[in-house]
């Protein structure tokens, strides 16, 4: 048996679809932490979104010039 190989775009769309809940989970975890780290939430979200954009740029080459232009 071989796993069904999906195209890059399909994989990236699925990955992006699950990224939102992952980021929310991470932010919620930080917000609830009792070590006074709530102030890290905006930084965490910013870095996660940046990382996601870079993953998309690496996966879907056609979008790369537009994404890299942001930086």
């Amino acid at each position: 048996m071989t796993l069904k190989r999906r195209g890059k775009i399909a994989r990236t769309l699925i990955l992006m679809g699950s990224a939102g809940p992952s980021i929310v989970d991470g932010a919620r975890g930080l917000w609830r932490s009792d070590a006074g780290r709530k102030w890290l939430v905006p930084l965490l979200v910013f870095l996660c979104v940046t990382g996601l954009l870079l993953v998309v740029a690496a996966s879907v080459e056609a979008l790369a010039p537009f994404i890299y232009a942001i930086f």
Partner: protein
Amino acid sequence: MRILGISAHYHDSAAGLLIDGVPVCSVEEERLSRRKNDAAFPLLAIEWCLEQAGLEPEALDAVVFYEKPMLKFDRILNMALRTFPRSWRSFPQAMKNSLGEKLWVKGIIASQLGIAGSKILFTEHHQSHAAAAFYPSPFDEAAILTADGVGEWATLSVGRGSKARGIEMLRELRFPHSLGMLYSTFTAWLGFPVNEGEYKVMGLASYGEPSLADEVRRTVLPAADGSFRLDLDYFDFHASAKRSYSDKFTALFGAPREPWDPIDLGTAEGKRYADVAASVQLVLEELLLGLAQRLQRETALKALCLGGGVALNGVANALLLRESGFGQIYVPSAPGDAGCALGAALWADRIHFRRPHVPIPDHPYWGPVIDGKDLLRIAAEDGLECETLQDVPARVADELARGRIVGWMQGASELGPRALGNRSILAAPHDAAMRDKLNRGIKYREEFRPFAPAVPVEQARRFFDLPEGGERLGRFMSGVFKVRPEWRDKLGAVTHVDGTARVQTVDRATAPLFHALLEAYGARTGIPVLLNTSFNLAGEPIVNKAVEGYSTFRRSGIDVLVAGTTLATRRKGASDAMLPREAT
């Protein structure tokens, strides 16, 4: 219920499948991809597991990842900020490393396997270790101690497990205070690769004196609760991507060894390296013993399950068995991250889904099965004639008794870093010259590294000084014990410089063919002990299929290759002189 466990993205990625609470199969990605310590998302291992069970991914009830990537990212981000400005150089590297695939595991699993996100679960790293250590153990109740470099935040955790009530984690030690990182820092200072060279430090330690133990203790501060903290002035691993130790560390222990410098134990420099290795080994043992003794007093339990990479330290494990107060210690065959694939699946099954415990077969053979016919075909294509054996143990024992080195492939491959008799290079254990021959001609590794003996469990005490519970600890080669003085000369190839050996006690029920081979060899030489080392060359993963065994056989000094009932012999044979009968 069908649960797939996955570990990936750090080192030794793996997959394991659990059906109705019982492991069906598990394999490290490296065995299939042929890249040593492969950390990539284990697609090949997942495919193989599903194929073994005849399942499509959609038929899985859950897929469990062995740690929580977002919590790990939280730790990396926190440490980078906490150690600023020291971390400013490593921060971009850390972000680049973390923000790619590693953070989006849920999406990767969903996209690669085509399953709904709701089926994807995450356990904490040390929960996976704890489940991998406790549930396959033979104990109904046991204390649990897991220790490694770092998971998300935890580096060491203690708890108690009950097959009826589940696992309760009691306490954890958090990064950067870490036993694994302490040992790894010295591994790096000694010029060995981190996460791979720790066992070299353990081997080297036997050649030294712990004369620098007080200096090592200066880097570790005891804590009021019985645990410890690292004095971070001596370390840099939490703030740097390139170096584990600080300038203060090198001021204390001297200049680090360059990886390419040979270790000559006859020189003052070589002796210093060995002394440092012996010192950090002693301090690690002291710390682990203190933790285990406290855990024993707290839980009043008789058995301990050890997990995490630190549990690969067989010298420390044997000390815990002798002195911690626990009468029995269990270490799984893969206590490191590879074992966490099954551990995560077990945690999900027993804790998340609250399913009752079902007994787990007590063996390490969860990987792909060898087919002797493949060797027959490959050798024929290469113009080498093979024999099909009627009595495999008898014939192979004859070859071993003639002093030949045998590549031995039988049944399913082992899960974990040890070859436990199904993917092994076997040889006569009597003469230290055999050790040197293997080191120089086949394994191409440092002279200070010992080889392990395998012995039928019922005869182990005749040759080795085993404490109570030693037979059990030795089943997966997890303990280092003294060779009885009267046998050291006759077991020269497997007796380390300090008179110890990492014994594998072979149980007839677990490994019947290997047990029969040991008995057949004993009938010929009087000593039912064989040298057993992993079937691979330096820098390569342990062989998996017949083709890899054959390739290794052709590129090394192995004399005889056996796969199933097929035997291939090197064209230019080794000496035919039978070894003298050693004992009666």
